[in-house]
């Protein structure tokens, strides 16, 4: 276990090492080194930047947007996927809409929403929900197709009612699919939120990318990117992975 952690640290160290070596070979306005970027990140927290806001403010805005759109997309997607999987008529009615929705390029969805809603909060958030929901739906639909009929027969033979079947038989079989949808949707959400912030929304980490991009300030662009990546990695591996470990305690380790 400790070996694994050491190896992971090594991969991060070698990344920083290559970055540092590259920065020595190129002018600072093209590739500033890790130290310069690190100092910029710290100073972004301590001194107010454009719009008179510090980094915490932008982080909070971005996280709030992610949380809001992600929750709505998860609830909608899970509900729609379950309905489609368990009710044949719903699947027939919505079946074709899903591949259509999945085909629309994410970038275009963001542009579309900007055209529909203008540079407003609603437009950006709508774009995220619109692109993430179908992915969750597809995952849940796949989950319902993989339900074990033998277990359902067992539950019915023991005369379990619908509520008990849902609580103790269905939900748990769907859990791996819910989690893979969860991870995937989360990854998509933060990418699209960043995109929407870059193109249209005011404030947020993505907004800061585009602000510094227009100034062609490479140190700041990299500082915000690194901050963003670090935050998302902590959320994915620190929070989601922990929850997952708890929920899947019943599975033998080699199955994970």
């Amino acid at each position, binding site marked *: 276990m400790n070996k694994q952690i050491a190896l992971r640290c090594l991969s991060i160290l070698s990344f920083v090492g290559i970055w540092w070596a590259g920065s020595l070979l190129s002018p600072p306005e093209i590739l500033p080194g890790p130290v310069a970027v690190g100092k910029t990140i710290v100073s972004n927290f301590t001194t107010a930047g454009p719009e008179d806001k510090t980094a915490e403010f932008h982080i909070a805005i971005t996280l709030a947007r992610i949380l809001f759109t992600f929750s709505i997309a998860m609830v909608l997607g899970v509900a729609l996927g379950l309905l489609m999987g368990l009710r044949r008529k719903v699947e027939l009615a919505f079946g074709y809409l899903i591949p259509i929705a999945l085909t629309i390029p994410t970038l275009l969805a963001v542009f579309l929403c900007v055209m529909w809603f203008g540079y407003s909060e609603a437009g950006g958030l709508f774009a995220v929900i619109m692109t993430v929901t179908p992915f969750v739906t597809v995952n849940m639909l796949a989950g319902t197709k993989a339900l074990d009929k*033998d*277990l359902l*027969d*067992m*539950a*019915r*033979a*023991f*005369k*379990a*009612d619908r509520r*008990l079947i849902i609580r*103790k*038989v269905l939900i*748990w079989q769907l*859990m791996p699919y819910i989690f893979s949808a969860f991870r995937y949707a989360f990854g998509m959400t933060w990418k699209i939120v960043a995109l929407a912030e870059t193109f249209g929304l005011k404030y947020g980490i993505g907004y800061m990318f585009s602000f510094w991009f227009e100034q062609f300030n490479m140190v700041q662009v990299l500082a915000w990117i690194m901050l963003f990546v670090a935050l998302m990695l902590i959320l994915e591996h620190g929070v989601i992975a922990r929850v997952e470990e708890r929920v899947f*305690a*019943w*599975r*033998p380790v080699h*199955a994970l």
Partner: protein
Amino acid sequence: MSSQAVVIEGLSKMFPSPNGLGQFAVIESLSLEIARGNFASIVGPSGCGKSTLLNIIAGIEPHDAGQVRIAPQDGTGSSARIGYVFQSPRLLNWLTVEDNVKFALEAQNIERGCWDERVKKYLDMVGLAGQERNFPLKLSGGMQQRVAIARAFAIEPDILLMDEPFSHLDEITARKMRVDLMHILERARPTILFVTHSLREAVYLSEEVYMMSVKPARIFKHLRVEIPRPREPEDPRLFDLEKSLVKEFFAVLEQDHR
């Protein structure tokens, strides 16, 4: 009626033909009765519709004609309790061993107050004391099947259906499980309908044996095994009985083929 736990009359079940045209009978006007507290086996070759019969009795598969009546032990009009042990354990792997048993208790609306006592009693009985908090996937196949047996016994069923419960286990484990089941039956005596393709298993365990032929499934012989229980697996009387029944079986099967 009151002394009978299960009465099946003229039961028929049709399946669509493999070629898609019309139907064929899997089970045709099958009748049988099992007295309360009896251990009855149905022996027949694979694919003769034994599992289908159990599923119909359990109410998870519809039938086309005939009647299945199960009398609750308390003689009231309430619906009968049916326990089921399948070929594979069919446990809820995300629930602990004790929660798997409680699942059946909850499904059967058994009062919460007696859950702990029932769980303890029946897990002890199948030899799983101490495994309550373990998850099924951490147990061996034989132990998982013991959980399934405890789950079915724990609801104290009016009829306990067992569908080749030992056929997925290796022979040594299966043999141990049969002997243990024999001992369990000294302590709990539900009415049991046990389905198997093994005559040896049937004559060793049961008081009554129904022999079934294939396509459509019908019963061509019913006999009582008059050897007092508990029995020894090596009892020569069992071997003799098995031998004579095997002969009869092949005679009927050959007849069916003509």
